[in-house]
């Protein structure tokens, strides 16, 4: 059947990249993009850095090129509340219904919030979050960042440069142990102390104090940290709650094949909210990195249009800029790798760490080492998408539609 209309739910990077890829690959039917925020597609990575400092304005964040005309029907400020997979029909939060020959779910993720906290505790995911945080980050103020992940670390670095007094608290013994491993995580987190930010690890937050407004953080060991501003950087969850009851498998995010198909014909998923089958892991896996959300839509558009997809997807890649140091990571860590330092050092903030499994390089981390990093990144194994090369790709039933109860 010729595809005459596509509805993309989500107007972030993955949604915009999907619209762009469909048009570039020749789709000339009706294209609708639905976004829960009022903003046209914008770039999120600068929200914790250059946008907070004022180096970049809201206009600079736009993902749309100045001469770009995708001929999209934008439906903005409307969240999706339900999907009927059989009829490709979406329900929006104003009660309206939208349907198309195909539906692409690209609803991204949502910042996790701490329960039961007083007003004034920030999270950072959206442009509106960043505008609120930017207003609050005044020179001389005391900022406590809960969570020493990448968002927390970037905001801490930005706020320190802006003249705030910054403390970062982390419940785990080692920051970034999940994405980078214990040793490398500690090496990267060492940037905080070397730049004058206090990092408290291994002690969970017991309570946030203040009634009308947050005024401090109490740790489980009784430490009181007075605060004028608190940022909770405690992770994000896939924005798929609205699909509960649709019959689609949302147990790991929206479960998809290696090319973005769900179990429902004509319904696809891409970006942070989706878990594509990963041939190197033998399971669906959610990748929440910027570059993957930009690049996978190109493969997805080929899936929709029935043209040959790329044979492989590059190893996942992400970056983080902290304290003027460019941190880059690519590859797939499982936790059983050996890590060797192949250039630079932690102290010099120019570390190049290589992760190997059974002698094969599977991941690499660089701190201000773009050239060496890129060389190794190029050699990392891709995950395969070609039908027939592995189980769970498009020719087999990777996913099954759940019974709707």
């Amino acid at each position: 059947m010729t595809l005459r209309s596509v509805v993309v739910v989500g107007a972030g990077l993955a949604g915009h990249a999907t619209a762009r890829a469909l048009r570039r690959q020749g789709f000339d039917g009706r294209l609708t993009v639905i976004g829960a925020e009022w903003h046209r597609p914008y770039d999120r990575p600068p929200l914790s850095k250059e946008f907070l400092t004022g180096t970049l304005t809201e206009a600079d964040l736009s993902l749309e090129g100045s001469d770009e005309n995708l001929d999209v029907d934008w439906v903005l400020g409307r969240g999706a509340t339900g999907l009927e997979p059989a009829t490709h029909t979406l329900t929006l939060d104003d009660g309206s219904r939208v349907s198309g020959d195909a539906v692409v779910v690209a609803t991204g993720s949502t910042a996790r919030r701490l329960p039961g906290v007083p007003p004034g505790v920030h999270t950072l995911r959206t442009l509106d979050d960043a505008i609120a945080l930017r207003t609050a980050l005044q020179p001389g103020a005391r900022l406590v960042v809960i969570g020493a992940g990448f968002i927390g670390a970037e905001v801490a670095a930005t706020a320190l440069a802006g003249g705030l007094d910054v403390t970062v608290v982390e419940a785990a013994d080692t920051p970034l142990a999940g994405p980078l491993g214990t040793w490398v995580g500690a090496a990267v987190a060492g940037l905080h102390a070397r730049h004058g930010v206090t990092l408290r690890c291994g002690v969970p937050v017991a309570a946030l104090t203040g009634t009308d407004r947050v005024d401090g953080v109490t740790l489980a060991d009784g430490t009181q940290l007075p605060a004028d501003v608190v940022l909770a950087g405690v992770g994000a969850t896939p924005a798929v709650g609205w699909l509960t009851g649709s019959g689609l498998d949302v147990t790991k995010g929206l479960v998809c094949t290696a090319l973005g198909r769900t179990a429902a014909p004509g319904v696809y998923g891409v970006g942070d909210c989706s878990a594509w089958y990963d041939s190197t892991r033998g399971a669906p896996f959610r990748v929440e990195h910027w570059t993957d959300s930009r690049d996978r839509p190109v493969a997805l558009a080929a899936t929709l249009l029935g043209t040959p997809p790329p044979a492989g997807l590059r190893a996942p890649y992400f970056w983080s800029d902290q304290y003027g140091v460019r941190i880059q990571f690519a590859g797939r860590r499982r936790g059983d790798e050996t890590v060797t330092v192949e250039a630079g050092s932690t102290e010099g903030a120019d570390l190049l760490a290589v992760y190997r499994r059974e002698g094969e390089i599977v991941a690499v981390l660089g701190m201000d080492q773009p050239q060496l990093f890129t060389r190794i990144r190029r050699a990392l194994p891709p995950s395969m998408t070609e039908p027939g090369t592995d189980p769970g790709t498009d020719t087999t039933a990777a996913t099954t539609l759940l019974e709707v109860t």
Partner: protein
Amino acid sequence: MTGTANGPGRRVRICPLSDIPAGEGVRFAEVTPPIAVFHTEDGEVFAIDDTCTHQDASLADGWLEGCEIECPLHASKFDLRTGAVDAPPAKVGVRTHATMVTDGDVWVELSTDAPRLPPGVSL
């Protein structure tokens, strides 16, 4: 040849072509802004401004595939023939320069167009 101001159409000698392995690039910082010279797998030689138009990154450190160079940081790709950019985060193409190989040496004729430098980077 040294200097910091670009004369109109000024030609500069970069290095022997044999100093640039096929599939790689070099950064040439003796002009302002610095340029990057690439030797493709097909044996062609291209020159562009070295600084990504999105943020301060050296494109010579990037990932060369065919006639496209991918920024090492944020993965926008630039066409070495035209300077055009394929996808965000960069939204502006990069300036290109004419190249020639004479007696085994790579020469670049510096463009007189205005460079397109990222926010926060100036000459």
